[in-house]
């Protein structure tokens, strides 16, 4: 695995500070905002390429009969016709995909209006899709990613991030 320690020429890695800046703990807007139950945010990790991640978001939406509308890296999710209860209220639900590494993304799901139940259902649906091992044979990743995958499976117990955290993780 020593070969993997050389800096990849691929620019598909986010830089550390961009990643750190995504931390909600650094956001001081909390000082000014009232606790607003309308606003909910979740971040999910996705061990997939950016395009596979989008596919999974679409699949998660389809599973719940929600319609989607893609705008660059953001997908807007609308209640479909079968969610008759929601159609009268304004709903603002979106999923944004941020590429962290060639086969790693973060999906930020944000709800600023609309039914909490739709939001929660969607998070659950997407979360389970993201933790599934991809059955779609992705476009052949380069050797680095492949060995990275097997390395992760073998050493998942040794993963540095949060292995000491008692909460544990459900996302891949």
């Amino acid at each position, binding site marked *: 695995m020593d070969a993997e320690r050389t800096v990849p020429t691929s620019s598909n890695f*986010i830089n*550390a*500070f961009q990643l*750190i800046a995504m931390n909600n703990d650094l956001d001081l807007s909390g000082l000014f905002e009232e606790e607003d139950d309308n606003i909910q945010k979740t971040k999910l990790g996705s061990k997939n390429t950016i395009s596979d991640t989008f596919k999974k978001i679409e699949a998660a939406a389809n599973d719940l009969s929600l319609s989607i509308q893609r705008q660059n890296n953001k997908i807007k999710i609308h209640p479909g016709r079968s969610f008759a209860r929601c159609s009268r209220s304004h709903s603002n639900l979106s999923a944004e995909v941020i590429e962290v590494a060639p086969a790693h993304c973060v999906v930020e799901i944000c709800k600023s209006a609309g039914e909490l139940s739709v939001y929660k259902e969607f998070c659950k649906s997407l979360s389970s899709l993201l933790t599934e091992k991809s059955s779609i044979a992705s476009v052949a990743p380069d050797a680095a990613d492949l060995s*990275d995958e097997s390395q992760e499976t073998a050493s998942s117990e040794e993963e540095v*991030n949060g292995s000491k955290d008692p909460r544990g993780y459900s996302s891949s």
Partner: protein
Amino acid sequence: MGCFSSTQRIQFPGYENPVALASETAFSVSEVEALFELYKSISGSVIDDGLINKEEFQLALFKNQKKENLFANRIFDLFDVKKKGFIDFGDFVRSLNVFHPNAPLEEKIDYSFKLYDLDGTGFIERHEVKQMLIALLCESQMKLADETVEIILDKTFMEADADQDGKIDRSEWQNFVSKYPSLLKIMTLPYLRDITTTFPSFVFNSEVDEIAT
């Protein structure tokens, strides 16, 4: 007018005259007064002593999800300018000033450098960046293999650490941030522009006429 301001002084150690604070910052006098409304509610939330301690600060930031974490601690330490373990009103206004949309870029670059220099050595070291990355991963419940974290760190330091001495100094940080201006987005709070609309109750307490005497 005089009576009101001395009442404030008794209740709030560290209270400073809004006119003085306004002259030192990007805030207008009414904005400073609006900030005082905010300050009062935060500083009284746990102990009603007119000062913001760490617990009150975290409560204000995270509402009911009171939690101890790296970044909240770091920001508290930066706000606590005099290193007394609490934030007084002057500290509060001067620190928030850096986050004002109109604050000079130089100040934002300085502040962010201090923010990331966790142990205050004057350099942002690799182990500090790693620590912050791990804290982020915990917060967002995202898993990244240690390999991937190392690669991200490698790439970052290749770019940011111009003299390759393993740490980022102030001028390297300046150059890096000019290349990636979005890194400073955390240093601006658009809310601060509309503070007088967010906290309109100040209107009834205004002790200062708009025309300065």
